[in-house]
């Protein structure tokens, strides 16, 4: 004889675990922490090796030099470079009450990066059952991203730049974690056809999430890379080429880019 089992909602006593409420509280914590941030900008490409982190760091410095408080969240958890690029060294992060104070880099840029937390030369590794690592590793990284957003005392910022790793998954996680609207997107490409193809996939994913694409930064221009990816992407997506960064850019390159953001 089949058991007569009622539904979850038929049982009216409290759900002590309250997992949806706990997840909701996490989202609320992200929203509260970012309440003082004027705009979150995801620096993305979909392609590795195009200089996203380099662009992010120098753009942040240019914004800071213009007196605009700026933060950098290094979302490349497995290949973190922001601390090095921004000269933050290896100072300990101070835990104060319910938050961690961000490190301070060159020109006063506030930042957090796995670079600051890991042993020298060691990869990001989590404790847990090794045999099933593929099941939980992605969830752990998403949790780390959430904590970088929610648990760092970002304070009042004009811009928070999120330096994304290659690929699309971290952007999707970021869009899921942030309160609406999704982050604005600044995309970085090099001139080549291969870069264009990877970047256009990333931009389509961003647009599918409802993100505003601010424009294209074409990096490593005049360095021997052939192609017109910057112009082609701008035309295809109806967005401007905000900057063409030469192989050896000077401060004026970054200042011009900062003026537009």
């Amino acid at each position, binding site marked *: 004889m089949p058991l007569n089992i009622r539904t*979850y909602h038929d049982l009216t006593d409290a759900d*002590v675990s309250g997992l949806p409420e706990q997840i909701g509280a996490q989202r609320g914590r992200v929203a509260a922490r970012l309440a003082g941030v004027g705009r979150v900008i995801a620096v993305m490409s979909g392609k590795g090796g195009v200089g996203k982190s380099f662009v992010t760091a120098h753009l942040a410095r240019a914004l800071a030099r213009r007196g605009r408080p700026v933060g950098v969240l290094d979302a490349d958890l497995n290949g973190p470079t922001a601390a090095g690029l921004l000269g933050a060294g290896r100072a300990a992060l101070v*835990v104060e009450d319910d938050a961690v104070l961000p490190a301070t880099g060159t020109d006063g840029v506030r930042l957090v990066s796995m670079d600051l937390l*890991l*042993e020298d030369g060691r990869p990001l590794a989590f404790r847990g059952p090794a045999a099933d690592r593929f099941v939980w590793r992605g*969830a752990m990284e998403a949790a780390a991203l959430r904590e970088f957003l929610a648990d760092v005392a970002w304070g009042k910022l004009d811009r928070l730049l999120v330096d994304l790793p290659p690929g699309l998954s971290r952007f999707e996680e970021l869009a899921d974690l942030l309160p609406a609207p999704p982050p604005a997107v600044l995309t970085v490409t090099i001139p080549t056809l291969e870069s264009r193809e990877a970047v256009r996939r990333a931009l389509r994913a961003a647009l599918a999430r409802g993100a505003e694409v601010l424009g294209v930064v074409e990096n490593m221009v005049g360095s021997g890379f052939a192609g017109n990816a910057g112009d082609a992407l701008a035309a295809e997506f109806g967005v401007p080429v905000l900057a063409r960064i030469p192989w050896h850019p000077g401060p004026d390159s970054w200042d011009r880019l900062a003026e537009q953001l």
Partner: protein
Amino acid sequence: MKFLCVECDRQMSFEERALPGDGTLAAAFRCPKCGRVVAMLTNPMETQLVASLGVKIGGRTLEEQPLETIRGTVATGRAEAFEEGTGDAGRTAGVTWSAEAQERLGRVPGFVRGMVKKIYAEYARDRGIAVVTPAMMDTARTELGLEGM
């Protein structure tokens, strides 16, 4: 999640959480009518999945610590990555550590040690416990759901 005593058709009450070893997380529920107790056991992978969500089975009884998941689970974190600020030092003033508890705390990786120390000290303070001992640490670990700490 809710547990139903099918025989009594009554929702069971959360009883306690336990960490019996080998990565198992146990959550026990009791039927308020017949008194039957059942325990849900998660295997190590399932325990890890729960931990990765930053949630606590049986409910969160401890305020979330900053970078709690990162500090509690990263195996390659450097010992000097964090420095406890002075802002809430007063909240654990008056709580002392037995030599055995200090020795045990010393075995905790430096990356997470500051957070673990704060959690145990606050647990002691909230309950009027003057001295942190290994026995108290065991009780707190189970009661607070400090999987992996």
